[in-house]
């Protein structure tokens, strides 16, 4: 997301509001290795398919 001009605070906002919308809760500690939006989307999908966190 840095490539799109987002700083770390912007990223928290995007990630948190997305999780709120998707009604999932992914621990922040599981997001530390995520480097791009594709990986983030995959992680979200994993939790949506699991039926929430």
């Amino acid at each position, binding site marked *: 997301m840095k490539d799109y001009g987002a*700083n*770390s*605070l912007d990223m928290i906002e995007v990630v948190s509001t997305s999780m709120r919308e998707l009604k999932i809760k992914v*621990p922040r*500690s599981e997001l*530390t290795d995520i480097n791009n939006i594709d990986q983030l989307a995959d992680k979200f999908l994993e939790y949506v398919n699991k039926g929430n966190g």
Partner: protein
Amino acid sequence: MADKALSFSLADFFFNDSPDVLAPPSDFQSWIEHPKIQEAMRLFGQQLLAAPRAGTEVLSSLDGSRHKVINMTSYNYLGLSSHPEVIQAAKDALDLYGMGASGAPLLSGTFDLHVEFARRLAEFKQKEDCLLFSSGLGGNVGAIQGLLRKGDMFVLDEKCHKSLIDGGTLSGAKMLFFSHNDPSSLEAMLEKCKGKRVLVAFEGVYSMDGDLVRLPEIMKVCAHYKAATYIDEAHSTLMFGPNGRGVAEHFGLEHEVGMSFGTLSKSFGGVGGFICSNARIIQYLKGYSSPWNFSCAPSPPVVAGMMKALEVATRDSSLRDALWKNVAYLKKGLQDLKLDLGSSESQVIPIIIGSSGEKLIQFAYEIQRRGLFLQPVDFPAVPADSRRFRISVSSQFTREQMDTALTIIEDVIARGLRA
């Protein structure tokens, strides 16, 4: 949530989804009441029952009773919070001026003490003028919020303190973070700021790792882009440099750095903050720095005590010499234990234990049971794979206290990590 409580942290509840604004997020309560989280949380906010000297007493969370401890957590780096001359100066001012300033600085809150202390701090930092704040956080927030506006650019090292980030948020400036201490990353950020007003902020000593700003390289990049510079010397004032003026003096660059921030709560041993810069911008900030002009001026006894602390710490080098001697001794002892001390170059020495939050808490309790007050630092304050203990070295440690502490650290942390 209950079975996964340990994989969550305070970082996960920042956005509140409760419809009632006066209620925390729905799952926050069940998380914080989980026994494992309760056990960890009990370590924080333990009450000290005496001055934060090298040897003090805490009301321990181990059993709710008084414990005598060796204190390696307080920021009382030079022992000034309980120095007899500092205490006497504060007492004298208390008799003369009373407890509070009873007013904002522009109306009735400015006493002769404030003016004199600000003058001495400016002289000490080799700048034209100084603004005193009632809190350290308020100083950083007030400086940044007062200097920058929407449309401006604020470029910070990614490890900068929350107070700088909060100041940036409040200012409305766009914030860009450069990779820690990385001049080429800074350069990439400054490329994006061309044509804008820009301020670059960094710290003298980074508080979680104890490493120093790579000031010559960073200043070179800033000079190339004609960016204004701001140094936070919270953990370095009175300790670094031939005259104790800080890391900027240590590198011989104090005249090049545009604005210098310091806190009064660490080496000074009191509470408050200050910024030093050219007289014109300090005068301007008096109109626009909210934590200064909308807050009661610092308490007179605190100001008098801090003025004495400045005098005691700078009349000779004995306190900082004692500090650096202790830093060298402890660091050698810790290195002999083959512990991961990160990149520490200062009196802040982390002992990085890795990713296990459970080990961190287990070690923390065991360390305290053995008589050492050394607090853990957990995610999200530090990265999840480098949870740590953080030693704050004091000039007041005796050799015996350091040897005892090293034995405890060896028994609990070094052996625990090998197990």
